[in-house]
């Protein structure tokens, strides 16, 4: 779990998502501020066009039947700022005829009001043109005319630059500040994560105690999940510890019995007594060996890392084999063991040894708990394996408990208490349903029918 170079950093991710939009926004603001600066400069300089055209218009009069003006030099001076713009002016009559001026300037058709402005390209020069519509002030003659003034854009550009530079400096300062705040903010926001990591790393690896750490809500969820996992692990470990305790207890008892029996036999001189003792000891050893192998099966089943090989098997074959294997011991105990299978093969994807183990355990269980008749049955639609006996059965309240290891249906009986737990483990590994029901609900004893019920997704 060491941080790899390629794995994306949360810090970097946050920074990218904060800084890239911020930069984009900053660029947008720069563009906007440039446009605003240009607009401001244009408005400021348009005032010059306005007043120059006004002072020209005031000098326009009618003389000898035509438009006449005494051009005020100050009006032209007004058009030029420190930037020494080129200036142009013209007087036009109502019919768009050039009356006087130093350039023939175009008219502006769109726009409203008496003063109109526009940017034009005129003889390779970028000009700002202002057109004033006015009319003669007289008692009778109110002939309209147009004063057109224009100048080059140097002054406007200089002012735009000045304004823009000012706002750009402010923007850059603000951006610096914002980047600093973002860097600091992200660092601060990710601090609890660092704290959590340190707390986990600083823990004793053997302890499964819950994490106790004050964290922000988002991380508190993570902490709770972690604590849930820890709690589950604690339960698993407690189970394992109990299982080991139970298993060692189970193994110690027969071994202690063996030892006691051997000691008793050794005190006697009678070879017959030795023989008897040896017979008992062999039975005891058999039982212990069986217990040990059952424990092994259970461990193998509970090991989540083991991946048993499943393949298509014929359930009828398995059932017949199980019956054959148990036939001798049952016959000796006077139990009637039988098998009922369809005439054709019933194929199920499963782990063969596990199914065989489950059947063996069920037959063994039934024979131990006082059945006189055991039937192994293979069913179809849905596919199932059944082991039915006419023993005392399991009371309904006990049916879940018997699935736990070392729980024995009846105290004092000779079973290991692992059989049904193993069957349950196998059923779970195959995603099959395990049901325990009375074989004849109304009879006494009711008997027990254990059914392994394969479902659609029953593949280990």
């Amino acid at each position, binding site marked *: 779990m060491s941080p790899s170079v390629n794995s994306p950093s949360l810090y970097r991710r946050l920074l990218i998502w904060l800084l890239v939009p911020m930069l984009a926004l900053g660029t947008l603001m720069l563009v906007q501020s440039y446009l605003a600066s240009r607009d401001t400069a244009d408005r400021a300089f348009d005032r010059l066009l306005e007043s120059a055209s006004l002072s020209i218009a005031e000098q326009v009069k009618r003389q000898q039947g035509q438009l*006449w003006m005494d051009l005020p030099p100050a009006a032209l001076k007004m058009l030029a700022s420190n930037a020494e713009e080129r200036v142009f002016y013209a007087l036009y009559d109502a019919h768009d005829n050039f009356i006087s001026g130093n350039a023939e300037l175009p008219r502006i058709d769109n726009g409203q009001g008496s003063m109109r402005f526009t940017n034009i390209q005129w003889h390779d020069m970028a000009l700002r043109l202002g057109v004033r519509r006015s009319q003669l002030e007289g008692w009778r003659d109110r002939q309209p005319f147009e004063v057109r003034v224009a100048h080059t854009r140097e002054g406007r550009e200089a002012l735009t630059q000045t304004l823009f530079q000012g706002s750009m400096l402010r923007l850059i300062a603000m951006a610096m500040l914002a980047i600093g705040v973002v860097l600091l903010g992200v660092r601060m926001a990710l601090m609890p994560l660092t704290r959590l990591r340190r707390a986990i790393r600083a823990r004793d690896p053997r302890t499964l105690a819950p994490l106790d750490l004050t964290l922000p809500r988002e991380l508190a969820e993570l902490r709770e999940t972690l604590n849930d996992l820890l709690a589950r692990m604690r339960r698993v470990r407690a189970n394992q510890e109990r299982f080991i305790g139970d298993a060692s207890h189970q193994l110690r008892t027969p071994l202690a019995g063996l030892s006691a029996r051997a000691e008793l036999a050794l005190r006697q001189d009678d070879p017959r007594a030795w023989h008897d003792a040896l017979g008992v000891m062999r039975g005891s050893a058999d039982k212990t060996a069986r217990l040990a192998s059952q424990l092994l099966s259970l461990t193998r089943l509970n090991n989540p890392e083991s991946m048993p090989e499943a393949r298509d098997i014929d359930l009828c074959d398995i059932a017949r084999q199980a019956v054959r294997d148990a036939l001798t011991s049952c016959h000796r105990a006077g139990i009637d063991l039988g098998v009922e299978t369809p005439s054709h093969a019933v194929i199920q994807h499963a782990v063969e040894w596990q199914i065989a183990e489950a059947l063996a355990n069920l037959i063994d269980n039934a024979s131990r708990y006082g059945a006189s008749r055991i039937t192994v049955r293979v069913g179809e639609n849905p596919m199932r394996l059944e082991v039915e006996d006419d023993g005392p059965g399991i009371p309904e309240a006990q049916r879940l408990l018997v699935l736990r290891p070392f729980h024995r249906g009846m105290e004092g009986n000779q079973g290991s208490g692992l059989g049904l737990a193993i069957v349950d483990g196998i059923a779970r590994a195959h995603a099959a349903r395990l049901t325990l029901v009375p074989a004849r609900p109304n009879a006494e004893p009711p008997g027990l029918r254990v059914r392994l019920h394969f479902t659609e997704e029953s593949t280990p």
Partner: protein
Amino acid sequence: MTAPYRSLARWAAALAGMMLSAMALADGAHVLRYTADHEANAPSLEIHGALDNGLMAPLLADFHARYPDIDLTYRNLTTLTLYRRFLSEDEASADVVMSSAMPWQYQLANRGHAQALTTPAARQWPQASRWRHELFGFTFEPVVIVYRRDALEGATPPDSHEALLSLLTRERQRLKGRVVTYDPWRSGAGYTYATEDAYMSPRYWELVAALGGVEAELADTTGEMLDGLAEGRYAVGYNLLGSYARDFVADHPQLEMVIPSDYALVTQRLVLIPKRAPHPKTAERFVDYLLSRQGQQVIRDKTPLGAVHTALEGEGTARDLRKTLGDAIHPIAIDPSLLATLDTLKRHSLLERWQREYTRLSDSGP
């Protein structure tokens, strides 16, 4: 006067050597030519100017001495021809255009026909004597009053516009027909001075009326007025070009030149490099030379034109005039108001008014 003449002699020796190889006069008296020393692939330079050859020759000779590799042609034209020729598409453009007709030169530059010059000399050129970096005033010539001492005996000499007005009013009978000034209709310079005078003070119209009262003669050129004054036909000349008058008055002891002390108009010759100039490199070199200390020194020492360069002192320089006259110095501004003088309606208005004022006293007088 001795210093310029001494250096002139020095330059004459240099000129003599040059003339053997180079100087030629073509196209009558209107063209000055200085051919390059190495004729093959010599960069050429064509200057069109409204300055007399006599005024230009020292400058051109000095320039040619410094840059003998440049094939130099100077064409002397009248201000109007110069302007028309500039705007005509058919004629090949000159490399440098210089003229005393300030409004026309300004109009050309304003229309974007001039290219900028950004040599160090051009950048340091006084702000008042240039427009952008396209138009440079390289001379400084006051507009003056010249009078005959003998004709004004007993009267206060006209050392200002105010004094001239009172002189004309008081000595109306004595000065009748003996005052001369520019004809504002026929002379561009006269018209320009009239607009500037009218702009300076509304009392100018009283002066025009007084000029009308003494039935002042109207002349076309400063030379004409000076000749008349020297011959004794005129007693007082108003609004003469100081650069011409200075040397002339020095040669005629009975004449006195006065730079008006209330305000003295100063006119400048403006030089520009056309955008269409076929040899912009040599053109830049020449204008840079005109604005350089060396070029300005030649203008100060060998011409009466008046140097503008701020580092130069001496008679007739801008620095000298500013020092002696202070605020009264009123150079005609190189700014858009020059365009107003070119406006035809404005011209009509002004000349009409001039005519009205000029004839006011004679109509109502006895």
